[in-house]
C-alpha cells in the first residue's frame, strides 16, 4: 500500500491541493477504459492471500465488449471476455472449506457465472418460465400440420389479448409476419421446443445462517419477470421465490436467510418494496414519486436516491424520515463503512462531479472529481482497509485512500447561512444629474406640472384636429363610411426609370360587394408619366384583395422624386372615399446612366 501513491504521482499531486482533505489520492487514470455501474464492482480476497482485489464487470465503451476485469493495485491482473453484458457482480463464501476463498458470481442475461479462484466453476441458468398451455397446444398442432398458419395467427392473437401468461418470443415473432412469410416460418421453427426465459436484473448476497463476517451466503437474484430468487450457495437450487409488483432494479438485504431477513427492492415503477422471510409478496411498499437511482441501507435506515435529485431516508416499515436535496442529479450510490470507527455513511456520485458523503441527513464530506462518477465502491483493497474506488463517465478509474487520522465530524460540508447572503445588493446608482434634477423639481414642481399639463392638452387637441381633418378629406387609406368599407395599400417595385405601382384594394364589408368605383392618380406631369391616370375598378367581392397594377415612368433625370396621390372615388361624387400618398423612390436607373 505504501508504494501506491508513487505509482501515479502526477495526477495524485494535482489533486491533493487541499491539505485538509481526508483522502489520499492513490491513483487516477482517466483512460483506464472501465465503464461500469456500482452493482458490477466487488472487492474480495479472491486468492486467499490477504491481498484484496477489485472485480469489475466492465460493459465496454459502447456496451459492446463486455469483460471481466480483476484489478490489483492500479493494474489489471486478469481480463477475460464475457458472453453478455454483466448486470451485477458479487463475491460470496460458498462453503466452509479451508482456505476460505470467496467465490465470484457474475449475473449476465439469464445466467449466473460462478468463478472460484478466478476459474469458471459453475453456471446457473434461471429456470424456464411456464408456457401458456394453449400456445403450447397450438404449436404442437402446427408440428403435426393440423393447423394452417392463418388460424394459428388468429388463435395466438386471441391469447395475446386475454391470457395471463404472455406468449413466447417465437409466437410474438410469428404474429409480426406477413401472410407470405408465415408458412416458411412455421416450417422452420415448428420442431423447436417453445420456451420462455427471463433475465437477471440485479443480484446481491444474503447470509445463510450466521451473521459472521465470513459466513456462507446465498445469492439473491431479481429477475425481469418481477420475481426474487434466493439460491442455495452450494447446490444452486432455488431456496425461495418471492414475487414483486414490478421489476426490481436495486436490492438491499439484511439478516440471515435461515433466521430472519428483510429484503428491500427498488422497482422500475418507482416503488420500493420491503419483504420479510415468510412473506411471498411485499410487506410494505414505499411509493416515491420518481424513479429510484440507488438504494443503500445504513444501520436501520433505508436511504434512497431519486431522480428528483434528492436523498430520502425511510424506516424499515416504510415511514419517511428525512429528505436532503442534492445540487445535481445522482448517478450512483453506495455504502461507506469505516469499521474501525463504526461509521456507516452513504456515498452519492453526482452529475456535477462531486461525491457527497452523508450520515443520515448531515453532509460529512464532499470529494470533487474531475469527471462525473458513475460507480462507487468502498472497502478493503490491497492491504488498505478504507479505500474508495470510483469509475467515471469517461471510463476513468480513481482510487482514494481514507487517511487513518481522518475523522468525520458533523458539518464537514456546508453550514451556516447560504453564501448568497454575503454578496452585496446591486442597487442601481443615481447620478449627480439626477439629484440636481430632483432639487429642480422641488423648487419648480408647480411650474413643471402646469407646463406639462398645458402641453399635453395642446398635443391632444392637435391630434384630434388632425384626425378630424383626415376623416373629413378622406385622407386615410381606410374609408370610414359605412357604405363603402374599403382598405387600400400600395407597393412600388422596380429601380426606375420605370416603376410598377400596385394598389391592393380590399372590400372589408362582410357581405356586400361594391360596384362603380374609380381610381385616380394625381401627380406632377413634368416628373412622371402614367399610361392611365384614371380608370374604373371592377366589382369588389368582400374580403378579397384586388391588385391593380400600373406602370409609372420617371421623366426627370435629376434624381428627384415626388409624391403620387391615389384617390378612390365613387362614380358621380367628387369627394374621394379614401386616398393614399405614395412616396416614389428616386429613380436609380437614371442616376446610374
Amino acid at each position, binding site marked *: 500500500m505504501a508504494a501506491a501513491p508513487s505509482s501515479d504521482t502526477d495526477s495524485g499531486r494535482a489533486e491533493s491541493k487541499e491539505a485538509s482533505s481526508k483522502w489520499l489520492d492513490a491513483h487516477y487514470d482517466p483512460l483506464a477504459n472501465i465503464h461500469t455501474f456500482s452493482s458490477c464492482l466487488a472487492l474480495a480476497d479472491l486468492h486467499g492471500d490477504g491481498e484484496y482485489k477489485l472485480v469489475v464487470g466492465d460493459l465496454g465503451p459502447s456496451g459492446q465488449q463486455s469483460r*471481466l476485469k480483476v484489478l490489483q493495485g492500479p493494474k489489471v491482473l486478469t481480463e477475460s471476455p464475457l458472453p453478455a453484458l454483466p448486470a451485477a457482480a458479487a463475491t460470496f463464501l460458498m462453503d466452509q472449506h479451508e482456505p476460505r476463498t470467496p467465490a465470484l458470481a457474475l449475473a449476465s442475461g439469464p445466467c449466473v*457465472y460462478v468463478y472460484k479462484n478466478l476459474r469458471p466453476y459453475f453456471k446457473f441458468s434461471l429456470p424456464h418460465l411456464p408456457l401458456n398451455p394453449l400456445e403450447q397446444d397450438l404449436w404442437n398442432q402446427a408440428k403435426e400440420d393440423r393447423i394452417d398458419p392463418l388460424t394459428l395467427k388468429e388463435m395466438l392473437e386471441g391469447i395475446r389479448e386475454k391470457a395471463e401468461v404472455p406468449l413466447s*418470443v417465437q409466437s410474438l415473432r410469428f404474429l409480426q409476419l406477413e401472410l407470405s412469410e408465415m408458412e416458411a416460418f412455421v416450417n422452420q421453427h415448428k420442431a423447436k421446443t417453445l420456451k420462455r426465459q427471463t433475465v437477471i436484473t440485479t443480484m446481491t448476497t444474503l447470509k445463510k445462517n450466521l451473521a459472521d463476517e465470513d459466513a456462507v451466503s446465498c445469492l439473491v437474484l431479481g429477475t425481469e419477470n418481477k420475481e426474487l430468487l434466493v439460491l442455495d450457495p452450494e447446490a444452486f437450487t432455488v431456496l425461495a421465490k418471492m414475487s414483486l409488483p414490478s421489476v426490481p432494479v436495486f436490492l438491499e438485504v439484511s439478516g440471515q436467510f435461515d433466521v430472519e431477513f428483510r429484503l428491500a427492492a427498488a422497482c422500475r415503477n418507482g416503488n420500493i418494496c420491503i419483504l420479510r422471510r415468510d412473506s411471498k409478496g411485499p410487506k410494505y411498499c414505499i411509493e416515491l*414519486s420518481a424513479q429510484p437511482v440507488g438504494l443503500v441501507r445504513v444501520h436501520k435506515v433505508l436511504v434512497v436516491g431519486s431522480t428528483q435529485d434528492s436523498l430520502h431516508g425511510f424506516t424499515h416499515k416504510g415511514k419517511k424520515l428525512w429528505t436532503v436535496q442534492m445540487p445535481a442529479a445522482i448517478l450512483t450510490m453506495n455504502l461507506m463503512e469505516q469499521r474501525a470507527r463504526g461509521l456507516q455513511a452513504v456515498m452519492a456520485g453526482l452529475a456535477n462531479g462531486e461525491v457527497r458523503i452523508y450520515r443520515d441527513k448531515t453532509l460529512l464530506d464532499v470529494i470533487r472529481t474531475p469527471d462525473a462518477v458513475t460507480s462507487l465502491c468502498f472497502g478493503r483493497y490491497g492491504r488498505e482497509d478504507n479505500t474508495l474506488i470510483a469509475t467515471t463517465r469517461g471510463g476513468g478509474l480513481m482510487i482514494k485512500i481514507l487517511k487513518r487520522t481522518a475523522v468525520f465530524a458533523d458539518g464537514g460540508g456546508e453550514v451556516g447561512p447560504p453564501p448568497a447572503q454575503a*454578496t452585496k445588493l446591486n442597487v442601481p446608482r443615481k447620478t449627480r444629474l*439626477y439629484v440636481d434634477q430632483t432639487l429642480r423639481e422641488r423648487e419648480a*414642481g*408647480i411650474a413643471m406640472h402646469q407646463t406639462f399639463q398645458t402641453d399635453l392638452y395642446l398635443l391632444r387637441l392637435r391630434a384630434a384636429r388632425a384626425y378630424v381633418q383626415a376623416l373629413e378629406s378622406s385622407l386615410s387609406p381606410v374609408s370610414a363610411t359605412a357604405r363603402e368599407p374599403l382598405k387600400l395599400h400600395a407597393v412600388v417595385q422596380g429601380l426606375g426609370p420605370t416603376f410598377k405601382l400596385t394598389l391592393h384594394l380590399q372590400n372589408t364589408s362582410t357581405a356586400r360587394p361594391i360596384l362603380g368605383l374609380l381610381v385616380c392618380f394625381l401627380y406632377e406631369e413634368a416628373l412622371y408619366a402614367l399610361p392611365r391616370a384614371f380608370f374604373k375598378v371592377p366589382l369588389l367581392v368582400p374580403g378579397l384583395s384586388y391588385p391593380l397594377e400600373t406602370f409609372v415612368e420617371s421623366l426627370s433625370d435629376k434624381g428627384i422624386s415626388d409624391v403620387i396621390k391615389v384617390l378612390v372615388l365613387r362614380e358621380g361624387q367628387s369627394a374621394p372615399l379614401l386616398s393614399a400618398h405614395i412616396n416614389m423612390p428616386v429613380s436609380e436607373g437614371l442616376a446610374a446612366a
Partner: protein
Amino acid sequence: MAEERTVMRTQLPTSAESQNPQLKKALEFPILEKQNWLIHLHYIHKDYEACKAVIKEQLRETQGLCEYALYVQALIFRLEGNIQDSLELFQTCAVLSPQCADNLKQVARSLFLLGKHKAATEVYNEAAKLNQKDWEICHNLGVCYIYLKQFNKARDQLHHALHLNRHDLTYIMLGKIHLLEGNLDKAIEIYKKAVEFSPENTELLTTLGLLYLQLGIYQKAFEYLGNALTYDPTNYKAILAAGSMMQTHGDFDVALTKYRIVACAVPESPPLWNNIGMCFFGKKKYVAAISCLKRANYLAPFDWKILYNLGLVHLTMQQYASAFHFLSAAINFQPKMAELYMLLAVALTNLEDTENAKRAYAEAVHLDKCNPLVNLNYAVLLYNQGQKREALAQYQEMEKKVNLLKDSSSLEFDSEMVEVAQKLGAALHVGEALVWTKPAKDSRSQHRTTSASKAACFQQPLGSNQALGQAMSSAAAYRKLPSGEERPQMKNLSYT
C-alpha cells in the same frame, strides 16, 4: 494496494465463452427483455444518448418487439418535447401488451401534456379499470378534472388517491382546489394535514405560511415561513414573505440581508425589488428606494403596487410632479382604490391644483369604506379652502369610520393622524378627542413613521399646510407596509 512486483498476467484458462452454447444460439430467438435493465439504468442516470443507443440495438435485435425499449424511448421523446411522437410509441406499447395499465397511464399523461384533458381523463378511466389501487391514476385524474373545472370530481379523485397512498403532491393539488374555490380555511386544513404527513416539505410550509399571512394570522405565518427557511434557507418565496413581515415590524436591515439571497437566485423579480425599495424607504434612504422601485417598475411596468410605492416615495421627496405621474399611472391600472385617489389629491394640492384635488378626494371618499385618513385629509383641504361646513361633514364621516374600526378590531391609530384630527377638531369647534378615547400611544408606534413625518414638519412652514403634510405622511406609513407585503402574497397565489 500495488506492490510494484511484476505479476504474470495469467489469463483465465477457460474463458467464459466456452460455457455458452454459441453455436446452438444461432437459430434461437434472443430474449426480448435482455437489456431492459441496462436501458433502465441509463434512463435513471439521465444518460439519454447511451440509453437511445441501447434501445436502438435492442429494437433492431428484437424487430421492434421489446416493449420496455419502446416505452423508455417514448419517455425520452416526451422529455425532449416530442410529445406527439412519444404518444404514438406509447400507443404501440399498449398494442404489444394491452393488459398493462402503465402504458395507458403514459398515453394519458402525454394527452394531458398536450392539453387534451378530456381525452386524458377517458384514458385514465380506462387505466383505472385495469389497476384500481394506483394512487397515480387517481391523482392525475383529479388534476385533469381541475383543469376541466370539475372541482367536485377532482376532489373525490384526490381524496381517493390520498386514501390509497399519501403523497405531498396530492395534498398540494387538493389545497389548490380549495383555493380556486376561494375556501381558504379548507385549504389551510388540507395543508396542515400535509405538513403533518411530511414536515420537511418547504413548499407546503411556505404555502401554509402565505395562507396565514393572507388571513392576517401573522404569528402562525411567521412560524411556518421560519420552518420553511430552516429546511431550505434559499427558498425565495418564503424569504420574500418573511422579509415583508420583518418590514412590517421595522426590521429593515434583517429583511435586506435576507433579500440578498433572493437577489442572487431571482435577480429579476419585481416584488423583490419593490420590497427592497420599501426597505430603503423605511431606512430613509430615499434615493436608493427610488432606484430600486424604478427597477421594479422597469421589470413589471403594469404593476400598480410598484407605481403606488413610487408615487408615495416621490411625495415624501416633495417631487410632486413626478408623484403625480406615477399615481395617475397606478390609477389607470387600478381605478378602484381610494388610497390612490387620496394620494393623487395630496399631490395635486401641493401642485396648487385645488379643483382637481377636490375631485380626486371626492372620488376617494366615494370609493372608500373604512379608511378615516381619506376623510381627514379631505377635511383638512376643505378647511384650508375655507369650506368649513363641508369640512365638518368629512370630519364627522371620519369619526364614524374611526368608531367602526375601534369596534371591529384592535387596530391602533397612528399617533400623528390622531394629532392632526384633534387639531382639526379644535379648529372646527367640535369637542376635542371625542373619538380618540385613548390617545393611541401604542408600544410599537413605528418610530420610523414619526421620524419621517418630523422631517416633513421641518421642511414645511408652519400653518395649515403642515397638518396636511402630516396626514399625508402618516398615510404613507399606513399604506406602504401593507403594499410592500402584499406583493409576494399575490405572486404566490398565482402559483398555488
